């Protein structure tokens, strides 16, 4: 932290051109932190969805045609046959058919819980759990089922999950792009603020230059100042962020249902958010240094 106490030959602390830098960095860090937190939360959510649905399959068997009692018998026969195929397939840990009562409960929210529902020729559903150790050839299993059991189809949930993950990944990349864009805007602002300060202090810089100051000596003074201003703004921005992220965590914990229970920032996310002020300050410092070097290169 020597830059906090290092003396400067340039009167940069009185500069109007750099006074706004912390006020710019603060909202930038706030927005970056929120975008970054969003990206991490989405990542956790995707991982959870992926974990929950991988390792499970659903086999649906269309109800056999005909009179209700005959249809029921034929469908049950198909279920038995399907179970035999599944149990003989390597990699299938467990397969069970959902009972009539479970099917009715699944449909009740849409069709109502009436006796009529029990008399309808409902398709049979089989819940299949796959072994963690063996990979199942799902294409071959689907083909076998379709050939052996008319009306049987395999659903591994991948299609809708893939779409959901694709959407989530797109949002994640959008968040990362926002963070990068914010970095670029912050950097550009610091760059032009530094160039302005150099123009304001041109006479002082020329004197330092003529009495033998190397570019690094002059650049160090601007860079230290930018680091300090960036850190001030960054910490202020972080101060705004922490309550917001904590409120999201608190809010999701209060919500019922498992779907949103993971909407909290993971540890790595917290580390990244807490490091943002330092990253912003270093970005400001490096930008200021680059601006000074570039400007001084035009002098003899």
């Amino acid at each position, binding site marked *: 932290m020597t830059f906090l106490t290092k003396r400067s030959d340039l009167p940069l602390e009185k500069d109007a051109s750099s006074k706004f830098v912390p006020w710019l960095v603060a909202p930038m860090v706030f927005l970056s932190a929120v975008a970054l937190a969003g990206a991490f939360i989405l990542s956790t959510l995707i991982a959870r969805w992926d974990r929950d649905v991988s390792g499970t399959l659903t086999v649906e068997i269309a109800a056999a045609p005909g009179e209700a009692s005959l249809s029921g018998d034929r469908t049950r026969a198909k279920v038995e046959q399907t179970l035999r195929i599944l149990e003989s397939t390597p990699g299938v840990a467990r397969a069970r058919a959902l009972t009539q009562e479970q099917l009715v409960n699944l449909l009740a929210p849409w069709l109502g819980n009436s006796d009529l529902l029990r008399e309808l020729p409902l398709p049979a559903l089989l819940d299949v759990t796959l072994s963690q150790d063996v990979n199942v050839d799902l294409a071959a299993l689907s083909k076998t089922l379709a050939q052996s059991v008319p009306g049987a189809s395999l659903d591994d949930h991948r299609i809708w999950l893939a779409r959901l993950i694709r959407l989530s990944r797109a949002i994640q990349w959008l968040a990362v792009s926002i963070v990068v864009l914010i970095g670029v805007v912050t950097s550009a602002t610091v760059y032009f603020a530094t160039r302005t300060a150099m123009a304001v202090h041109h006479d002082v810089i020329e004197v330092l*230059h003529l009495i033998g100051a190397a570019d690094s000596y002059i650049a160090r003074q601007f860079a230290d100042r930018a680091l300090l201003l960036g850190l001030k703004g960054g910490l202020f921005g972080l101060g705004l962020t922490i309550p917001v992220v904590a409120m999201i965590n608190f809010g999701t914990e209060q919500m019922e249902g498992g779907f949103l229970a993971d909407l909290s920032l993971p540890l790595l996310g917290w580390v990244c958010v807490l490091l943002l002020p330092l990253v912003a300050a270093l970005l400001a410092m490096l930008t200021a240094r680059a601006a000074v070097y570039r400007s001084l290169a035009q002098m*003899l």
Partner: protein
Amino acid sequence: MVQFDGVAVRYGRGPEILQDIQFALPAGSFHFLTGASGAGKSSLLRLIYLAQRPSRGRILLFGRDTSAARRYELPALRRRVGVVFQDFRLLDHLSTLDNVALPLRIAGATEQDVQKFVPDLLNWVGLTEQMHATPPTLSGGQKQRVAIARAVIGRPDLLLADEPTGNVDDRIAMRLMYLFEELNKLGTTVVVATHNENLVSRLDYPRLLLENGRVTKA
């Protein structure tokens, strides 16, 4: 120490304000650079302290061809040259002490060295009481002494002074010249640009006379 071979300077597409400058300053010498106002004394000094490059010709400084020197090599060469600018070029926001300490700090001296050497020198030039004053509060003569102190604090190999006695009375002017002489005796090569004929005649040193953009007497 300093050698000019066929050096010329022009600004933009204008005429050459210095033409075919040819001279050599041996190490440890003391020279006056004289000429009427506008003769090009300051431009010639600017070439020596590497504030600008010549339009043509070659300048050797401490044996190094400055036009062939890489940009990153120039600060080290400049640190061997002490300059008293005609307009002083003091930094108004810094105290007298900090202004004088600049060359030491730029050269990487410790604060201990700064606190040891700078007050001594300020005492020598009679500015002890103004040590913490800033240049806007100093008189013209005091500013000039600060500028001289800043130029000599780093014990440069070459000292260039552009009209160093312009703002002081004859007594102070002679005292400053004695300071330059002391430095010269210690091995510093000195070039004093002046149009003060009285001063030049009182001290018996060779002169470079600039007339019509040429050094006519070396």
